[in-house]
C-alpha cells in the first residue's frame, strides 16, 4: 500500500541526486560593487574557450569519422612543413592569442586600474586592520582618534567583522603566525596575509546581510574551520556596534584591558600604524 510513496521518495531522491550531479552551480551571491567585473571576465573566458574547445571537439570527431582507417583510403603523405602550413598554424595561434588573451588582458588591466588596485581615499573610507592567527580572525577599527595602535582602538569579538553598506572599506592585514588568506566569496576577492609584511585589499558592499569569511591558504589542521562572519548593516547600526565594542577607558594596567574576557593568545596592542598607500 505504501509502495507508491516509497517509490516517489526514491525517485525524488534520485532527482535531487541527478540534479546535484549535472547542474551547474552558481557562485555565491555577489554583494559587492566590483564583483561583477570578476564574473564578467570569467564569463567572457567561458564563452571564447567554449567556442575554441567546441571547434577542437568538432574537428576531432570529424577527423575520427572521416579518416578512420577502416575506410581503406590511406593517409596523405604530407609533412605540413611548407611555408604556407607554418603561416596558417602561426596565424591561427595569433588569432587565438588576439581573440582570447589580448581581450582578457585588456579587461583585466582595466578592472585592476579602475577597481581592484585603485584604492579609495578620503574621509568616507572605512579602514580596518585584520590580524589572522591559527585559527581565527582578529579585527581592529581605529576608534575616535582615527589612528591605529592607540588605546582607543576598537577590537570586536574574534571572527566578527562589521561594515556599513555602500561604504568603501580598505583592509590592511599582516599575520600573527603563518600565512593565511582573507577570502570573501560573496565579494569575489581574497588576499594573503603574510607575517612580516602588510598587504591590503578594498571592497564595497551593496547589500546587507551576514556573509562568510574564509581562510583560503592552508594554515594548519584547523584551516577548514577558520571561519569568520562579515555583517553588512546600515550606517546607524554600524556606528552603534562600534560604540558597543569601544574599549573602556584604559587604566595604566594593560592587563585589565580585555573586558570581553576572551583569551586570543595575542596581546591587545597588536595594531600597526596605518600604512599609507601610494
Amino acid at each position, binding site marked *: 500500500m505504501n509502495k507508491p510513496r516509497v517509490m516517489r521518495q526514491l525517485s525524488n531522491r534520485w532527482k535531487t*541526486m541527478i*540534479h546535484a*550531479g549535472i547542474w*551547474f*552551480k552558481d*557562485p*555565491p551571491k555577489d554583494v559587492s560593487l566590483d564583483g561583477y*567585473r*570578476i564574473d564578467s571576465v*570569467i564569463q567572457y*573566458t567561458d564563452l571564447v*574557450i567554449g567556442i*575554441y*574547445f567546441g571547434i*577542437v571537439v568538432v574537428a*576531432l570527431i570529424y*577527423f575520427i569519422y572521416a*579518416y*578512420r*582507417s577502416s*575506410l581503406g583510403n*590511406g*593517409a*596523405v*603523405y*604530407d*609533412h*605540413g*612543413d611548407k611555408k604556407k602550413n*607554418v603561416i596558417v598554424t602561426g596565424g*591561427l*595561434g*595569433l588569432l*587565438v*592569442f588576439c581573440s582570447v588573451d589580448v581581450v*582578457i588582458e585588456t579587461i*583585466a*588591466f582595466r578592472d*585592476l586600474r579602475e577597481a581592484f588596485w585603485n584604492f579609495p581615499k578620503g574621509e568616507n573610507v572605512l579602514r580596518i586592520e585584520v*590580524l589572522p592567527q591559527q585559527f581565527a580572525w582578529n579585527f581592529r577599527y581605529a576608534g575616535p582618534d582615527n589612528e591605529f595602535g592607540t588605546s582607543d582602538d576598537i577590537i570586536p569579538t574574534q571572527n566578527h567583522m562589521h561594515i556599513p553598506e555602500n561604504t568603501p572599506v580598505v583592509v590592511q592585514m599582516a*599575520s*600573527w*603566525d*603563518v*600565512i593565511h588568506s582573507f*577570502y570573501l566569496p560573496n565579494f*569575489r*576577492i*581574497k*588576499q594573503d596575509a603574510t*607575517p*612580516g609584511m*602588510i598587504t591590503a585589499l578594498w571592497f564595497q558592499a551593496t547589500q546587507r546581510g551576514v556573509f562568510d569569511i574564509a581562510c*583560503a591558504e*592552508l594554515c*594548519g*589542521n584547523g584551516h*577548514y*574551520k577558520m571561519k569568520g562572519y562579515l555583517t553588512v548593516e546600515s550606517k546607524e547600526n554600524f556606528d552603534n556596534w562600534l560604540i558597543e565594542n569601544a574599549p573602556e577607558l584604559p587604566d595604566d594596567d594593560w592587563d585589565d584591558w580585555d573586558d570581553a574576557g576572551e583569551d586570543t593568545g595575542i596581546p591587545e596592542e597588536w595594531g*600597526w600604524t596605518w600604512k599609507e598607500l601610494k
Partner: protein
Amino acid sequence: MGMDMEGTKIMKIHKDSFWSKHIFSEDHKTIGKQFFWLGLFFLFFGGALAMLLRWQLGYPEQPVPIIGKWMWPDDGGIINPDIFNQMFTMHGTIMIFWAITPLLIGAFGNFLIPLQIGAPDMAFPKLNMISFWTMFLASLVLLSSYMLPLGTASGGWTSYPPLSSPAGGIPGLGQTIWTIALILMGAATMMGAINYITTVVRLRAPGMFYFKMPLSVWGLFLASILNAVFVPVIAAGLVMLLLDQTIGTEFFIAGRLASGDPGDPLLFQHVFWIFGHPEVYILILPVWGITSDLLSVFSRKPAYGYKVTAIAMSTVVALSSLVWGHHMYTTGMSPLLGKSFMFLTLLISIPSSMFFLNWLGTLWRGSIHFDTPMLFAMGVIWVFGLGGLTGLYNATVTADIYLHDTMFVVGHFHYTLAASVMFGSFAAIYFWFPKMFGRALDPFIGKVHFWGSFITINYVFFNMMVTGYAGQHRRIYNPTEYDFLKPLSGLNEWITIFAFFLGIFQFLFLLNILWTISRSKLCEKNPWKATTLEWTVNYPIPHGNFDEVPIIYYGPHEYSRPDIKDKDWLGQNELMEVKKWQM
C-alpha cells in the same frame, strides 16, 4: 669519440650476475624498468590517498567503509583533520615527484632516449644507476615518515613556511623528513637530467640530427634541460628550509606581525615557483612529445609541422621560466609585476596553440587506427585542450583573485597534470610495453580502461572546477562547515563516486600489466609498424642495444610514402630504400 668506445667497453665489463643484471644494473633499459615499477607503485599509492581524500570531501566525517575501522580505530574509522592534511600533502608530493617523474622521465627517459637516438646506453651508466638508487633511498625516507608517531608532513605539497617550519605549529618530524626526501629526490633528478642531456647531445647515432629525433626525445630532452636548470633552485630553497627546520636559522621566518626577524616567507614562494612552474612543464613536455609521435604512428601520416612542434615546445620551455609569479597574484605583489607575469603567461598560448593545431593537422587526412595507445593519445588532445584553456582563468589577475586557492585551480591542474600526464603515460606504456617486456598489453582491457578512465576523469576534474567557481576553497577538511558551500555537497558526493570508478578502472590496467607479463607469448618485433630505431632491435634487447651503429637517413615519421609500394612506413635507418630513392 665516445660512442663506439663506450659501447665496446660496456660489452666487455658486463657480467651477468643477478645483482649486476637486475639490481645494480647500469643498463639503461633495466634502470628504466626499475623506475617504471617504482613509479607504478607510487601511482597506486597516491591514487589510494586520492580516494580517501575524496571520501572525506564527498561524505565528510563519516567512517571510511571497510578499511576505516582498521586504519583509524581511535576515531571510529573517521579521517581526522590532521590525517586529512597529511593525506593531501603526501598525495601531491607523491604524484608529482614519485609517480609522474619516475614514470615519464625516469622510465621512458631512460628506456627511450638511447634506443631512439641509436646510442648503446646512457652517457654515464654508473651515474644512471646511482640516480635510481638515490631515488629509491628518497622513497624510503619519504615512506619512513609514515612510521613517525605524529605522522607525515602536512603543509601541502608546496609546504610554505612558516607553516612548514617549527614556528608553524605542525608537530613532529614529518615536515623535516619531507624536506630531506625532496632534497634526495632532487639529487636523483639532477643526475638523470645531466645524463639525458649529455646523451642526447653527445651520443646521437650518425645522421641523427636534432631535427631527425623523434618528438618524444625532444620532449624528454627539453624536460631534462628544465630539470638541470631549475632543480638546483628548489634544492637551494629546500636546504634553507631544512636549516630553518633543524638548526634554527630564519631564512623564511619573519616573526610576528609586520616587524621583527629579517627572514621572508615570500622568498620561499618565489624560489618554490621559479622551480615549480617549470616543473609542470617538465611533467607535460614528455607527454607532448609522446603524443605528437603516437598520433603520427596511428594516423600513418608524418607528424604535421614537425619542426614547428619542436620549436614551439622549445619556446614554451624558454617562457616557462618567466611566469612563476602567476602563482602569487594574491600575495600582494606589486601591480607592475602582476601585469608583467600575466602578459608573459598569456604569451605561452601562442606556441601551445601551434603545436596543438599540429596534432589536429596530423589526424587530418590520415588513416586513423584506433589502437589503445592512439585512444589515449587522442584523449590527451581532449584533456590537455581543456586543461590548457582553463589555465586562462588563472592567468588573469582579476579572475585569479577570486579563483586562486579554490577547487577551480585544483581541477585545472589535474586536467593538465593528472589527466593529460596520466593519459600520456598510459599511451606510452601501451605503446612501448612490447619493447620493454616483449609482450603486448591486452587491447580489449586497454579499451575498457581508456573509456572508463576518460569518462570518469572528465567528470571528476570538470566538476572540481565547477565547485571551485562556486567558491569552494581547496585543502579544506570539511566543506559543509561553510554556509555558502552547503549547496555543493550533492555534487561533491557525485565527484567522489566517479573518482571511485576512476580508481577501479586503474586496477583493470594493473591487472592487464601483471597478466600480460606473466603470459609467456612474445609478440613480434615491430607490432605497430613504427619507424623509429627502438623497433629495429629484438626483445630482449642486449646490453649495448645495437649490433652495429645504426645510420640514420630519415626523419622519425616516414609513413605512407607514395614511393614505397609494399608497406606504408620507412624505418629511420633503412638503407635499401635509400638506394632506391636516390636512383
